[in-house]
């Protein structure tokens, strides 16, 4: 079991570095470190993430968006090692700026060749990258219904311009 954990850990670690660098840039650094390499099964796993130029004391010093991208890179690294048939993300894109949303969604598209993705989102850029969309609404108060939507009828289900911006 230790064998398998170590082999899995080392593969996931390599994937993590590769995925992190494509969500950030090639000049950004990261690592996964076992707190007790001699006792892998008792070890906790430390995440080190160092966007270019910065010297964060710990991942906790990173910004909301940087933390989200870092954990996303870890998750995708695990999916590369052990692909899950489908992945569900519920508003994980909320803390990301536009550039990072595009990188995040491009990564999802890359993985979607082998896995199915279900993405809950409020973000228009994310919506543009989906293959198919379902709109969830409550026409009758308190009762959900689900209908297929595309960009032609999106505004009926995701009312964007009903409220006038002052």
């Amino acid at each position: 079991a230790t064998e398998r954990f170590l082999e899995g850990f080392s593969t996931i670690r390599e994937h993590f570095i590769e995925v992190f660098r494509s969500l950030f840039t090639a000049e950004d650094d990261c690592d996964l470190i076992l707190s007790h390499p001699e006792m892998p099964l008792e070890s906790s796993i430390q995440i080190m993430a160092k966007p270019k130029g910065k010297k964060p004391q710990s991942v906790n010093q990173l910004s909301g968006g940087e933390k989200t991208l870092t954990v996303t890179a870890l998750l995708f690294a695990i999916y590369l090692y052990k692909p899950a048939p489908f992945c569900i993300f519920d508003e994980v894109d909320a803390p990301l700026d536009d550039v990072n949303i595009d990188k995040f969604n491009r990564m999802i598209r890359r993985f979607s060749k082998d896995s199915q993705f279900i993405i809950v989102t409020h973000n228009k850029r994310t919506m543009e990258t989906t293959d198919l969309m379902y709109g969830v609404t409550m026409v009758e108060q308190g009762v959900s219904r689900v209908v297929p939507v595309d960009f032609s009828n999106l505004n009926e289900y995701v009312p964007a311009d009903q409220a006038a911006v002052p």
Partner: protein
Amino acid sequence: MRLTEIEVKGFKSFGDRVLVRFKEGVTGIVGPNGSGKSNVVDAIRWVLGEQKSRMLRSDKMDGVIFNGTNNRKQAALAEVRLTFDNHKGILPSEYREVTIGRRLYRSGESEYLLNGVTCRLKDITNLFLDTGIGSDSYAIIELKMIDEILNDKDHSRRDLFEEAT
């Protein structure tokens, strides 16, 4: 092995039966706040065997049964069915299409079903063993979990690795 369809009735805000078909690739779920998007995700977690009511934002397990509105009675039972296309034979079942189901009656009785036949929760978890699918799967992610994995709350990070290796 991909998800082909989910059918939900009497579960959370799904007072009416709702059927959603999934295709390959990326499916978006959109809609206003409070419309039921996360409830779809909860339905998938629940039918895969989620036992912790707080993971479903509920104080007690019967909190997932449609509790009615001003114009509608509450439901007597919550029911979710999830269908998979198994033509690659990833799931240890001779069926090409595998449907798992779960029911919870207001009386407290609960049932699990595999291709329409009552079974134990164990039969369902065994079916998905080693596929990465499960109610606590590393493949069902919401924003709160990002923080939990980063802070390693309740060994969540350790669990993530153990789940995968």
